[in-house]
Each structure stands twice: as C-alpha cells, then as structure tokens.
C-alpha cells in the first residue's frame, strides 16, 4: 500500500482542552478522502497538523512516509497545495498579480497561471483587483493558487462553501480531473452531498474523535436498511422489505397500475452522521 497520509493515535490539546483524541486514519495515493464533521470538530486542526502549521500533542503523523514536521522544509512544501478559509490574498493586487507571485515562488512557467485560472473559470477576470471580487471569486482564486503547481496532495478546507451551484459543479469537475491525474485530495466539509459526490472514502469526526470511516456506499449499507417505499396513486405509502411476501404485494400494485412513486430508504451521509453522533452537522 502507498499511504500518502498516515495518522496514528493523533492527539492535540490546546491548554487543557482536547481538540483531537486518538485520531487514526490513512489515505492512499490517488484517493479523495472526506473528513466530515460540524464546525469545531477538529477538521481544520487536523489540516494544520498535517501541514506543519500546528504541533501535535501526541501520536504519529506521516506525510509521504516522512514526519509531518518535515513539511516545513521549503522543498517539501512543493508537494502539497492548501486551501483554507484563512488563505489570504493580496487585496491591492489583481488576480493575475497574486498568481504571478506564487508562480515565481514555486518557479513555474507563466502558462501555469492561465491553466489555474481556466480551472476555476476566472481567466477573463484576471485583471480584476482582489478587493473588487465577491467572496466566491476570492475562494476560486485561492483554489487556483493551491492547484497551480499541480501538487501531489491537495488539502481543501470547505472548498465550495461560498460558491454558486454552477461554479461548484465546475470545481467538482476540475477536482475529479486533478484526481484522475494522480492528485490525492484531503477534503474537509460539513456538506454531506459534496462528500457523497466527490469522496472515495469519508471519516466522520465528532468532538475530536473519528466515529466512523469507510466508503460512502459501505457506510450506507452498514447503517441503512435495504427497504423501499412505495407511494400509491390513492395517496397511501408503504415500506416494502426484501422477501417473497412484499415482492408479491409490489407486483400486484404494479400490475394494477396503482404505483405513483418508488424510492429507496438508503440513508444519506447526513442521516448516518446523526445516527452515529446524535447531533447535527451544523
């Protein structure tokens, strides 16, 4: 196995408050991994520890097989890209000038700026000053900066929180393309539908602990039931379980053209989160 991130028994305390407790997970090369949890659950702290912005209290944290602390080294920083809600931009400079600075810091060709701006659908606005942009546009500029050097590992902290549906879809397509090109993505979000669309595996983080981890479809199988609900034309609805008796009932309704709608009772990731933690994702 080729683990890009390997976290074992991670603990982080701020003064006497525990932010993360016995957190363990590993992410393989090429995976899109969703770290899901409500605000204050420890998602951003985890990213900060992984990117050597915060010291861990205990546990082992490896990135590319090396201690995360080594990510402070200049050359290692080229291996990852990061977008967080506190990734600042130079407001008096234009979009292009902001990216030019970072393309020089990463020693990239000028063409990297155009590629990154095309990725976030902002090439036409490249001359606009950051101070003139909406929050969503700023988020796209930050994302462009994070992916400009084609990192092996991309940390995204709520990447589409300020975006409209059209741009969200555009970003999703771009992230899938990046992932197909080999970029491993560590995504934190409290948007369960985003996680379902993008992630190969997810972990539920609640009050600093991982409560469940796995592929969305496996978690749904584990925590959901395989019944379906049938709505009839007379307004009645009935839950149908697997089995001969219910199958005959369903066959009868269908034959007599009584069925109005059929849908599965598969839980959403949000339902599972509530089921596991007893609290909502806000």
């Amino acid at each position: 196995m080729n683990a890009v991130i390997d976290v074992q028994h991670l603990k982080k305390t701020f003064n006497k408050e525990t932010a993360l407790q016995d957190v363990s997970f590993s992410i393989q090369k090429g995976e899109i991994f969703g770290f899901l949890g409500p605000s204050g659950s420890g998602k951003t702290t985890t990213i900060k520890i992984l990117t050597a912005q915060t010291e861990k209290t205990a546990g082992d944290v490896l990135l590319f097989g090396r201690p995360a602390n080594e990510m402070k080294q200049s050359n290692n920083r080229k291996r990852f890209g990061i977008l967080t809600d506190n990734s600042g931009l130079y407001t008096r400079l234009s979009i292009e000038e902001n990216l030019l600075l970072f393309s020089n810091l990463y020693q990239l060709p000028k063409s990297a700026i155009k590629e990154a701006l095309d990725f976030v659908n902002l090439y036409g606005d490249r001359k606009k000053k950051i101070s003139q942009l909406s929050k969503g546009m700023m988020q796209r500029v930050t994302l462009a900066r994070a992916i400009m050097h084609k990192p092996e590992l991309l940390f995204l902290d709520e990447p589409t929180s300020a975006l409209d549906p059209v741009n969200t879809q555009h970003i999703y397509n771009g992230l899938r393309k990046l992932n197909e090109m080999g970029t491993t993505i560590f995504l934190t979000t409290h948007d369960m539908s985003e996680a379902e669309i993008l992630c190969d595996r997810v972990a539920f983080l609640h009050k600093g602990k991982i409560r469940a981890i796995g592929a969305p479809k496996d978690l749904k199988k584990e925590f959901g039931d395989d019944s379906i609900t049938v709505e009839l034309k007379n307004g009645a609805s009935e839950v149908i379980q697997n089995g001969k008796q219910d199958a005959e009932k369903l066959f009868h309704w269908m034959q007599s053209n009584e069925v109005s709608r059929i849908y599965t009772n598969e839980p959403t990731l949000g339902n599972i989160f509530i089921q596991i933690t007893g609290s909502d994702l806000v």
Partner: protein
Amino acid sequence: MNISMTRIQAILMKDYKEFSRNYAVSVMVFMPLVFAFLYNKSGSATIAIYILSINMAFSMVTTYVQCCLIAEEKEKNTLRSLMLSPASLGDILIGKSLFVFIITMVVVALTIFIAGYNPANLFILAIALILSTVFYIALGTLCGLFSKTIMEGSLITLPVVLIFSCGPLALALPSANPISKIAEWLPSSQLVLLAEALEGSYITMDIIIPITSIIVWSLVTWIVAGFIYKKRMVD
C-alpha cells in the same frame, strides 16, 4: 538556508506593488523630507540636527514601513500563505527587507541633500548608515511580528520612533545623568557621536565603537526577529 533570487525578487516586486498602492503607508516616506526641509530653513545647522532628521527617516520610514508590511500580511493571512509556499525564512525576510532597504537609502540620501548636510567623511558615514538601516529593518520586522493589524503596528512603532529618533536628544543632559548614560548606547546616539567625531580630529576608536555597537544592535535584533518568526510559523 535555502535562498532563491527568483523568490526574493518575486516578494520584492509584490511589496513594491502593494506599497505603491497603499497611500496610508507610502505617504510616510515624505515626512522625513519635510522635516529635513524645515531644519534646513530654520538655520540650526548642527550635526545633531542633521542626524536627527536621518534618525527620523529610519524610524518613520524604515521601521514603520517594514512593520506595516509585515503587520498587514498577518492581518490578511497572507504571511501564512507565504510561509506555506516554498519561500524559505531567508527568502521572505530578505525579500521584504530589500524593498525597505532600497526605499530607506533613497529617503536618507534625499534627507541629507535637503537638510544641506555635507559630511566630512562620506564613506565612513555611509557604512554606519547602511548598518543602521539593517538594524531599523530588524526592529520593524520585530514590531510587525508582534502586531496583529496595521493599526496595532502603527501604535507599536510610536515608542520606537520616540526612543530611537529622540533618544540622542538626551545626550544634551549632564553626562552623569543615568538617562544620558543609557541613551548614549542607542544606535541613533552612536550615529550622532560618530558623525560628530568625523567632523573633527578623530582616533580609530571613535569610529570602531559606534560601528561595533550598531552591528551588535543589528545582530541581536535580527536573531530575536528570526526566532519570533519561526515561532509564528506554528500556531
């Protein structure tokens, strides 16, 4: 330390663009020039007055601008973005300092010209001025690292301006006065003592002591600034 000229130049150009569009900070470069003009017109042409206007340039331009550049980066979270890029500690500090160094050299040269100061030994004075610039940049860096916003940075630099620009005025107090004794060792006072020595018949120690003390101030301040910067890299 991993240092890259491309990265230093990128940070220098970025700071130039940001500074030239930030009128609240960039207007400060004219203050020492106004003072130099007023001193020139007042007719009080003493070495202490010439150096006072130069020391004001160091405090108001070098320290203040460096402090504001760093404080603003912290306020807007851009310093963290730089720290997460491949730019090393050296790239960031040299890139930011180089811009302020260039501005300081221009402002100090103009201040000397406008004040009408004609130093007896320009070469030795130039060495002292360059070393002083290095010290005041370190001081500005330190002030910036301790500030969370530009507003805080402006407040923090006020006592610096007061102590380092006006400190040499305490040299006029009787030499037994403890304030005078302490003030004598400020780099700004050492610059005054050096400039005064250069106008008369001086011995080697009159040059070595001020230059050495400015170097020591610079070294200590840069070491502290580097240490604080590294601590600021992690939360």
